[in-house]
């Protein structure tokens, strides 16, 4: 079957799932049936993505349309295929997660499931869009449906605020995306993406660059580039766990897909400064994302900022790729695109996994606050193992998948000197250094993100009484297996991606990447290479050595079991352990200028410390972007609205006057 046919089948399955969900009432079996259909759709999308990866660009299919909306144009490109594979995996995982995470089936759940499945259809439509109108309609539908997903529990003002941030920024981005597409469509005279790509050289240079910048900012709102990211930490905590997983796992990737569409398919040729600006924006996003993640106690806000960091890494890779192309290095261009797409796949897997596990944790303990958790790995062993796999992946530690893709990105960035321009080479090195800082901070942040909730002793009774009976486990487990497969099976993944890159860019990377023995040698034979498969086998083999040493050298006398060393305290209470904020204190002190914390301390009395009674300490990082960027903009808009309010006085006579003036003006314009 062709890829498009598989995508169509997936959409049909999801449509059926949505209908079943709406009609299911309180029948639990019907809800399970809906989830099963959702999983089926995910599998079909996955298969379609693989098919599109291997078979290359299909022709544009126009199954109809109308004169009003324009024709519906669908095409399965290899660039979109990677994202479709991810969509399939995420859909299957969330479909497995959903039934057990919703204890009672209510009207609200049914509406949510329906909206979720429709959002899946909209996402696949964005990826399969072959024309401008199709793309824009699908994009807007996806945004509105995600807004409904976030609004799952509308009673609290936090939920409404988070959802509103999402919608407002999505719409702002949409305006810019429309502008970008309109420029391209007008200058090339066609609404089909293939034709636009073929005729891109007809677009004058400044219009072309303007269109690219509009697309970068417009899609950047969705992808979460700094300073356009503020909806992520607002919306993720308040959405249900699978909603957050869907948002972070897939929806922000659609923003990345949009940027990749403009950067690599529609407008590949361009000046070097485009790539450098993109790369700089990506590096900044990565660093700021992880720094803000360090200051978060709420697990979901923490993961949201980590998403921002990873998107920054991907966009840095894309930007460097564009820079290399501007200097004629086509192999490096294709290579960094491949590395970026690999990271898209990896991040989709482990971020979805971590969000689903955050949902399991919230369900088991009733709280998202890291400082109220602890010891969950003992209370919920399976969740602990799965979350550990996800943490290893996102911290980019060998031998898991995050390491593979970040290694490839670094290898590509280190080739910056091949641009033969000193300034550009230095800028690329600075970007690589920023990514290095980000990588180190990411390990720190995720030691904290895994260690505080899962290790140690439970800090509260809720954490102590957590249990994983009845909790969803197959969805996250599938994603954990996917992480391992993506790592150990990297040669196979690279074959697939290289085939897609060959169709998308015309550069054949496979002979460079996988000569002979399935060893990965990135981009140039002068640089070091490794094979993740060999690395995994080697690490496992090496672990045998300490075991042998222990068996040979252990003391013959028996060993005694003594209590854990706790500093000699007489009554060690779990609250004396590291808290999330004290663990990240060194970073917060070092980067104090970024956080600008506002600290307030209130004592019950003026007596010296120890006798003063209760002390209330509150510290909050200044929301820099909300306060200094968005609030002035909003204030400006409100001022403008106030300014024009007299026009809408409600007086019918005034409105009749407007009508008369408009008719007069139209008459004069036509006449002149």
């Amino acid at each position: 079957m062709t890829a498009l046919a598989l995508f169509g089948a997936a959409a049909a399955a999801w449509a059926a799932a949505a209908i079943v969900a709406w009609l299911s009432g309180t029948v639990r079996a019907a809800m399970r049936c809906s989830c099963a259909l959702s999983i089926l759709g995910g599998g079909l999308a996955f298969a379609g993505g693989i098919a599109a990866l291997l078979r290359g660009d299909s022709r544009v299919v126009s199954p109809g349309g109308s004169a009003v909306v324009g024709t519906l144009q669908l095409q399965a490109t290899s660039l979109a295929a990677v994202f479709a594979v991810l969509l399939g995996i995420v859909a299957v995982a969330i479909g497995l997660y959903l039934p057990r995470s919703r204890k009672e089936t209510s009207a609200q759940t049914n509406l949510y499931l329906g909206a979720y499945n429709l959002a899946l259809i909209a996402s696949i439509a964005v990826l399969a869009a072959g024309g401008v109108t199709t793309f824009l309609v699908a994009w807007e539908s996806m945004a509105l449906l995600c807004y409904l997903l976030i609004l799952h529990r509308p009673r609290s003002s936090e939920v409404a605020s988070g959802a509103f941030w999402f919608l407002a920024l999505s719409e702002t981005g949409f305006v810019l995306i429309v502008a970008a597409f309109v420029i391209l469509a007008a200058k090339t005279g066609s609404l089909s993406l293939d034709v636009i790509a073929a005729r891109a050289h007809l677009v004058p240079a400044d219009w072309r660059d303007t269109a690219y910048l509009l697309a970068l900012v417009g899609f950047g709102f969705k992808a979460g580039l700094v300073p356009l990211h503020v909806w992520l930490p607002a919306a993720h905590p308040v959405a249900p766990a699978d909603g957050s997983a869907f948002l972070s796992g897939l929806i922000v990737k659609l923003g990345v897909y949009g940027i990749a569409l403009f950067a690599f398919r529609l407008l590949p040729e361009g000046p070097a400064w485009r790539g450098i600006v993109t790369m700089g924006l990506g590096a900044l996003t990565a660093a700021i994302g992880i720094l803000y993640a360090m200051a978060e106690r709420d697990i979901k806000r923490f993961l949201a900022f980590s998403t921002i960091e990873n998107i920054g890494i991907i966009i840095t890779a894309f930007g460097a790729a564009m820079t290399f192309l501007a200097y004629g290095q086509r192999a490096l261009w294709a290579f960094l695109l491949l590395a970026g797409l690999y990271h898209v796949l990896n991040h989709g897997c482990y971020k979805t996994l971590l969000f689903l596990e955050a949902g399991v944790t919230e369900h088991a303990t009733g709280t998202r606050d890291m400082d109220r958790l602890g010891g969950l790995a003992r209370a919920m062993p399976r969740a602990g193992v799965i979350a550990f796999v996800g943490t290893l992946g996102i911290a980019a530690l060998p031998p898991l998948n995050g390491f593979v893709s970040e290694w490839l990105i670094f290898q590509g960035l280190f080739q910056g000197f091949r641009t033969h321009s000193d300034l550009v080479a230095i800028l690329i090195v600075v970007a690589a250094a920023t990514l290095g800082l980000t990588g180190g901070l990411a390990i720190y942040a995720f030691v904290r993100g895994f260690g505080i909730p899962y290790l140690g002793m439970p800090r509260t009774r809720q954490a102590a009484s957590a249990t994983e009976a009845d909790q969803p486990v197959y969805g996250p487990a599938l994603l954990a297996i996917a992480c391992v497969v993506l790592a150990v099976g990297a040669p196979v993944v690279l074959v697939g991606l290289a085939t897609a890159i060959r169709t998308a860019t015309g550069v054949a990377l496979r002979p460079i990447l996988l000569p002979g023995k399935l060893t990965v040698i990135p981009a140039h034979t002068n640089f070091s290479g490794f094979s993740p498969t060999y690395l995994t086998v080697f690490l496992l083999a090496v672990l045998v050595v300490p075991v042998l040493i222990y068996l040979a050298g252990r003391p013959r006398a028996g060993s005694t079991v003594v209590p854990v060393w706790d500093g000699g305290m007489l009554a060690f209470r779990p609250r004396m352990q590291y808290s999330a904020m004290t663990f990240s204190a060194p970073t917060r002190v070092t980067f104090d200028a970024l956080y600008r914390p506002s600290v307030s301390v209130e004592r019950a009395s003026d007596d010296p410390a120890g006798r003063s009674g209760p002390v209330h300490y509150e510290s909050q990082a200044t929301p820099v972007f909300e306060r200094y960027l968005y609030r002035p903009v909003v204030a400006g808009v409100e001022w403008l609205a106030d300014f024009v309010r007299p026009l809408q006085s409600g007086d019918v006579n005034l409105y009749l006057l407007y009508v008369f003036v408009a008719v007069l003006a139209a008459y004069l314009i036509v006449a002149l």
Partner: protein
Amino acid sequence: MTTSPADLTDAIAETGEELRRRVASQFRRSLHIRTLDTGSCAACEQEIRLLAAPHYDLHRLGFFFTPAPRHADLLLVTGPMLRAFAAAARKTYDAMPAPKIVVATGACALGGVYQPDAFCFGSADEVLPVDVWIPGCPPSPLALLHGLLVAVDRLAEKVPSLSFTVGGTA
């Protein structure tokens, strides 16, 4: 043939001394020291700190300070063993893996200065089994070095043969 109780006691003491020597000789050139202040005035701590300074340079002898009792071979105790601290001192000692050595230093830990009362035990060996005693108030870093080297059997003790009496017969 029967051995008298006195002979037995001597034999036991000799075996004990040999055991102590064998334990101590394991640490001849690599010793990790954990200091424990059971309520001292910190003069001993200041002298102990100086051991790591360039004048005395503990590290050239292979001795190191470690904060973790799990990594420590030798527990260097100062202070008159306040009752409030006794449980923590015992916990620190228990957390050290065998074989281990306990050295009490300073007049307080040796039983001087403070009488046993409601607040302190008066000497370190009320709570911990002390192997080596280093007198002084505070003991100079040289005295501490000598004591540590005695503890790892690199130097011989001098005090049993000193008489502190001048002239006449001791």
